[in-house]
């Protein structure tokens, strides 16, 4: 029961372990318009999406490659009419299927079909703990009540339920209310994840960044609740790393455990990787998943830690956080090979703190997530 230690590598592929998780971004279509969406600002269109057969092939290849868990995500994955078929494929392949949904467009009957097809787990997003905040953040009227009703259906089918909340300036004062909501809805788990500033969230950083004092107050509330609710509700907390001293072990290492496939079939080491210029991503339309994982240039660009600066090479945390996030390094330092500027040993550490403090004091409005108009 020790920490995951991977053993047994394919003989033909020395050095690189097989992936454990696949984030399947089935579509970028979504009824919500959350301003912190992790999708890229340039969304992929329906006409570019993979077919059902494409995804089924990818899921089978994933299982053969060693993937154990599949996160069916988006956009809103239920915007795809073939979602049940894809869940069934996961079940056939013994892949643990996790549906990551906004919960506003799945009828009770469809949810029952998904459960029958073998869905293992539902992760439901809440943008606010009250109808007003959920509507303000998601841009969808009536969203909150739909989500509550959906959660009740999930419980009625005895599917395990996790609530996922992205925390930011407009809802960070609701931490206790989110915990109460999770208990009221009978969820087993609650994820309170501070916004990570990529994609739309980066675009909206000055509208989302909370002041440091509010972040600290929220963390204290979470810690109290974790102790109080042990055994009743598991609360996972993702800290806002701009205010941190140590970087997150982004993706648990680049190309080390998980991969991401976009709606049009691009294989990415993380969902924000397309921001890094010069990386060559391979498409699942032309390559197998094994090729993408083991041989595509983007996956091999930052594998391991050899590319990191000397400070990291001497650091006892090198093999714990892998120098943090490549995208964040690029954003702040201009060089994706630098250590994550969140790290207190980074020469840019003060810059990212200054950015956070400045953004938290701005009075910016949300730029809601939407598809660009043609020709825009």
């Amino acid at each position, binding site marked *: 029961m*020790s920490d*995951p230690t*991977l053993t047994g590598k394919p003989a033909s592929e020395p050095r690189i372990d097989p992936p454990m*998780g696949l984030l399947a971004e089935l579509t970028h279509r979504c009824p919500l318009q959350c301003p912190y969406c992790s999708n890229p600002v340039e969304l992929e269109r329906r006409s570019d999406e993979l077919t059902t057969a494409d995804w089924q092939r990818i899921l089978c290849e994933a299982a053969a490659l060693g993937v*154990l868990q599949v996160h069916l995500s988006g956009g809103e994955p239920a915007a795809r009419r073939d979602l049940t078929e894809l869940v069934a494929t996961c079940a056939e392949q013994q892949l643990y299927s*996790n549906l990551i949904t906004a919960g506003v467009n799945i009828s009770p009957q469809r949810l029952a079909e998904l459960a029958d097809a073998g869905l293992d787990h539902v*992760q439901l997003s809440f943008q606010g703990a009250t109808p007003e905040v959920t509507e303000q953040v998601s841009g969808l009227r009536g969203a909150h009540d739909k989500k509550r009703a959906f959660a009740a259906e999930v419980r009625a089918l005895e599917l*395990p339920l996790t609530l996922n909340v992205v925390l930011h300036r407009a809802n960070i004062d609701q931490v206790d209310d989110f915990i109460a909501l999770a208990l009221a809805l009978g969820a087993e788990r609650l994820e309170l994840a501070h916004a990570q500033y990529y994609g739309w969230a980066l675009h909206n950083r000055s509208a989302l960044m909370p002041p440091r004092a509010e972040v600290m107050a929220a963390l204290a509330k979470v810690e109290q609740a974790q102790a109080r609710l042990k055994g009743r509700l598991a609360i996972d907390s993702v800290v806002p790393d701009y205010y941190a001293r140590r970087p997150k072990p982004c993706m648990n290492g680049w190309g080390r455990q998980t991969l991401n496939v976009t709606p049009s079939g691009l294989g990415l080491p993380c969902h924000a990787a397309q921001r890094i210029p010069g990386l060559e991503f391979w498409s699942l339309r032309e390559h197998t998943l094994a090729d993408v994982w083991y041989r595509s240039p983007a996956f091999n660009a930052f594998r391991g830690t050899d590319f990191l600066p000397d400070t990291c090479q001497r650091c006892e945390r090198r093999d714990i956080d892998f120098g943090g996030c490549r995208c964040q390094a690029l954003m702040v330092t201009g060089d994706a090979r630098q250590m994550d500027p969140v790290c207190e040993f980074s020469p840019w550490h003060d810059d990212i703190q200054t950015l956070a403090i400045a953004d938290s004091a701005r009075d910016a409005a949300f730029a809601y997530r939407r598809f660009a108009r043609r020709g825009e």
Partner: protein
Amino acid sequence: MSDTLTDSTVVRLPRGVRMRHDAAREGWVLLAPERIFQLDAIAHAVLENVDGERSLARIVDDLAAHYNAERSRIHHDVHALFRALIERGVLETV
């Protein structure tokens, strides 16, 4: 969920937690929401006996008989494993 484990405690995998063989890494795993636990040989042998019906004592007896091993040692291992997995939310008392 009870905090105390006794000989009569019956446990099971909660909904959303599955045990399966992991061919790529030549082992067994527990799959849970957002988490994967790689099982060592002892944990796998114990969990194979978790069926939501047999008590902790009965599982210990069966393992002791099957492996021809010292009962007190098996009891210790089973107890420790159940406690650890319950604390992580991937095992529940019936």
